[in-house]
């Protein structure tokens, strides 16, 4: 099973605090402007991503579990 999530970092809110890249270094990285971008949307450790979202000091990270799951081809 491939579980898919929609992870969105709102760049109008993201201040480049780097909290998410410290909490979940394999799930977020910084772009050239120093703002966070998610590195994955599949089969990730959802709990870790939710922890990073909650730790974000400006609430810039949204995590949505997609209703549909699909089988690996």
């Amino acid at each position, binding site marked *: 099973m491939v579980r898919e999530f929609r992870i969105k970092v709102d760049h*109008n*809110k993201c*201040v*480049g*605090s*780097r*909290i998410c890249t*410290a*909490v979940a270094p394999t799930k977020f990285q910084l772009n050239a*402007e*120093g703002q966070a971008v998610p590195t994955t949307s599949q089969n990730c450790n959802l709990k870790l991503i939710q922890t990073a979202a*909650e*730790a*974000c*000091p*400006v*609430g810039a990270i949204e995590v949505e579990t997609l209703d549909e799951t699909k089988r690996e081809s």
Partner: protein
Amino acid sequence: MTSTLKEKLADDILSPEAIHNPESYFARLREEDPIHWNEKQKMWVVTRYEDVVFICRQPKLFSSDKLGFNVTQIPESKRAKYQEQFPDIFSAYPHILSATDNPVHDQIRLIVNQVWTPVQAEKWRLRIRGLIHRLLDDLENKDEIDFIKDFTLPLPLRVILEFLGFAQEDWKQVKKYSDRWLAFHFGSGLDAERWHSGAEGIKGLIDYVQPRVCDLKSNPQDDYISALFKAEWKGQRLSDQQVIVHCATMLFAGHETTTNLLANGLHILLSNRDQWSRICADPSLIASAVEEIIRLGGSIKSMMRYALDDIEIKGKKIKKGDLVLLVNTSANRDSRKFSCPHQVDVARRPNAHLGFGQGIHICLGAPLARIEAQEAYLALSQRFPAMKLLMKDAEYYPLLRARALKSLPVVLR
């Protein structure tokens, strides 16, 4: 532009005109010389949005180490003497989040972040609402008030004291020590009075918080300080001293800025009556109104960094050790980022202002300040929609770093 104009601008940063109307002063710098060497203040003044953001997001190049910077100003032969004379400053500053660089900053912040997030702050909304209505109940029978003395000064102090579990009656004592500390924190130089003031303020607040913090370590409760002791990041916890300094800093930093924000915000709203009427008629605009107020009337006018290495930005050669003033209040009116930047629009979205800073030093107390401001303007607009300013010209304290009104007389009905 002529060099004469540049020099005039450089000399004017604390002039009555620049204090009264910083927008006009900084707008000229922003357009004509956005990374400007101010010869009088001996510092770079950065006024465009993109440059302020860039520097804030380069903590390896631009330091926030306040003690480190202060120490560089002391001649080497006198450093040991200062350390001996002001032990409280030297022992506290290496643990103050806003005044440290990495790795120390992240070590503290990531532990604090386990127990303090916007989600945690939200749990305080109803208690803050209650405090606001109790304060307004006391003002109900008065026609005219000084909004600062009667509301914006007591509210943030009461909130932060209640948040940390201290008695609200202690606010005068806390305010006295905070003011002493403030004179050191936002100043610079070797002036003995400044250092004595800082030492007295820091020692006063540390001595004030210490017994309660130590008691909570031995007898933990369901509260923020006990949670700080339990919080871990990669197996590390905060030391007793780190928790004590953190709590003292919260008392110091957690009220003055919100006092000024609440006052500046009401001044903006009542001076733009159409915008005040909009929030009175539609309370769902309160959240975006507060962001707009922070953009245009945030209490922190500028932030300080110093260069850890030589760096060239837009042709300007910043040298290692140079002071850099990041003028967030100017960046927040940069037309390259905001459409109609001088216009007050309580429904503005998006609104990526720099009122709480940017980068790793983003204001820790921002979630609490936002809630206080949202709840304050909600209560005021619902209870006193007819309130009016009783002054023609606003008067501000002549400060480089903060935007602080001296008074705000209003009539409630």
